[in-house]
Structures are given as C-alpha cells and as structure tokens.
C-alpha cells in the first residue's frame, strides 16, 4: 500500500539546536564558580609538599595567612606575614583573628580555621610566633597548606 511508502532518505543528523543551551548551562556554572583573586600575594609562595593532606569541610570558615619572604626587594628580605592584602605584624594577629571572626555567623566563630600558607623556605620561628598569637586569639584550628606529592613518592 502506498500509505506505507518507504522513506527514500533517512536523515542521520544529530539535532544541534539545543547546543547553545548546553553551552550556556556550562557557561553559567563556570561564571558562578569562578573566583577572581582579590588581592595579589606579595610574599614568596612555594608551598611545601606533603602526602597526608586533609580537605576542609567548610571553606567559608577559612582565613588565610601567607608567610614568606617579600617578592619585592623594597620590603627587605625578612619574612613577612600577609593577611588579606596587607602585611601585618605578629602583634596584630589577635586583632586580625577577631576581625575575621566577626565576619562569620556567631555560632560558627569558634570553628574558624586558619590556613597558614607558609613558603617552603620560611623559617619555623616566625610561624611559631604566629601560632602563639593564634592560641591567644583562640583560633586554634590550623591547616598548613601544602601541595600533594603522594603520586610521586609512596610513603
């Protein structure tokens, strides 16, 4: 019967009309997750390597301290502590901790984690001073940020 005529040509094309939608979805995902770096880091930051790394449960509870030699010669060669975008002295750390805590919700203030991003060549002395101040400032959760080396060397 002519009603069931065989189709002469079978189109074998993937419909591409929805591709812009797919692309836009991806685009929005990356737009939302992108974090432009707000402050430039002005100390050397070659992080030490370690294998036993732990992830943080809540990224919002983290405050960063960068410790290392200044990258610009005009600031000298002595190691400095950078918090947000300024250099701070060890005496200012308690104040800085309280400032960071006040940014958090009241119930979460005691859970603040300080991520110490120490340069691999930084000396233990300055980092220990920072720790002493953090203890006084009652911010006792510390994360020494490091890069993963477990793939290169089995321990």
């Amino acid at each position: 019967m002519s009603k069931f005529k065989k189709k002469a040509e079978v189109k074998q094309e993937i419909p591409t009309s929805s591709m812009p939608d797919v692309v836009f979805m991806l685009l929005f995902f990356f737009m939302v997750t992108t974090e432009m770096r707000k402050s430039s880091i002005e100390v050397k930051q070659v992080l030490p390597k370690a294998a036993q790394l732990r992830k943080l449960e809540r990224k919002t509870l983290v405050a960063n301290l960068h410790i290392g030699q200044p990258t610009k010669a005009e600031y000298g060669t002595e190691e400095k502590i950078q918090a947000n975008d300024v250099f701070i002295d060890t005496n200012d750390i308690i104040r800085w901790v309280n400032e960071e805590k006040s940014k958090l919700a009241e119930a979460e203030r005691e859970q603040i984690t300080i991520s110490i991003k120490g340069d691999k060549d930084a000396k233990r002395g300055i980092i220990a001073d920072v720790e002493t101040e953090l203890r006084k400032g009652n911010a006792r959760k510390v994360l020494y940020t490091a890069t993963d080396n477990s793939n290169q060397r089995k321990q």
Partner: protein
Amino acid sequence: MARSTPEIPNASMADIAFLLLTFFLVTTTINNDRGLSIGLPPPPDPNKNIDVKMQEKNLFKIQVNSSDALLIEGDPVSDISGLKEMIIKFIKNKGQDPASSDSPEKAIVSFKTDRGTSHKRFIEILDIVQGAYYDIYAEEAGVTNKQWREAAAKLSDPQSKAIYDRGKKDYPMNISIAEPTKVGN
C-alpha cells in the same frame, strides 16, 4: 504591504557563548585548600606553672635543628624512610616492650624544632608523623588511608562519621609540637 519582521541573526550566538565559556574555563580556579590539619593547644595559663613529668618511655622524641638535621630518640638520623614504621610500632606497643609506650593513650610523639628550621622540613616530618596515625586509623576502620582522610573531611555524613570514629576510637592523636628553641635565626 506586508513587511517582514526584522530579525537579529543568531547563528553566531553559539560562538559567542563558546568564547565566554572558554574564558571562564581558563580563569576558574576551584579553590581546593588542602594541607596538614592540626589543633593548637589552649594558651598557657600564666598563674599555673605546669611542669608535667612524662615518663620517658611514653615519649617519642623527634628533634630538628636549625640546619634541618634530625635527632630521633636522641640518635642522629639522616634517612627518614623508616621513621613512620618506628612511630607506628611505638604507638601500638601497648606495653609489650617495657622500654616503649604503655598504651596508645599515653604515647606522645614530641616534635621539637628550632627557630631556624625551614617550614619545608617541618611539614615533611609532621607529614610522616600524621601519616603514621592515619595509617593506624585506616587499619582500624578497615579502609585505606586516603579513604579515611576523605571521610574525615565530611563528618556531616553519618557513614563517613562512622568510619572516622571507628578509626580514631582507641588512638588519640598525641602530637606535641613544642615551642622552638632559639639557636638559629
């Protein structure tokens, strides 16, 4: 006269979207902070002069000087590959060897550095000490070291919490990081 409705050509829209997409793909840094996590002790109470005497055998002493050289239990060591096994043996001794620790609760790994010790060396040693504990936890919980650490990062999930607790139950992480000495810098 019927006028055709004006239309913006939208054939190139996909190209524009792709350009934007590529831009954000490249600039995105998904911030994954990872590192060695420790808890600092509470600040010292100036009114109390705490002078706790620990039994020598319950202490595993690691000392690093200002030139990053290492003393383990008083002996100079240059090869640190066996350190992890030594610590695991020390923690799990449970009184078998009378010269080593009495129980995991009493066993303390004492880690003392100098002000001149580099951060790199500090992290290297701390990594090994924590690795020894994580290995024990993983064994207790019946998972791999990596799985245990991942479980520890999401304690809100009851299943992960169970793994975390199972590992940590009998072995508190007693790592004492002493104030550095003041020889170098």
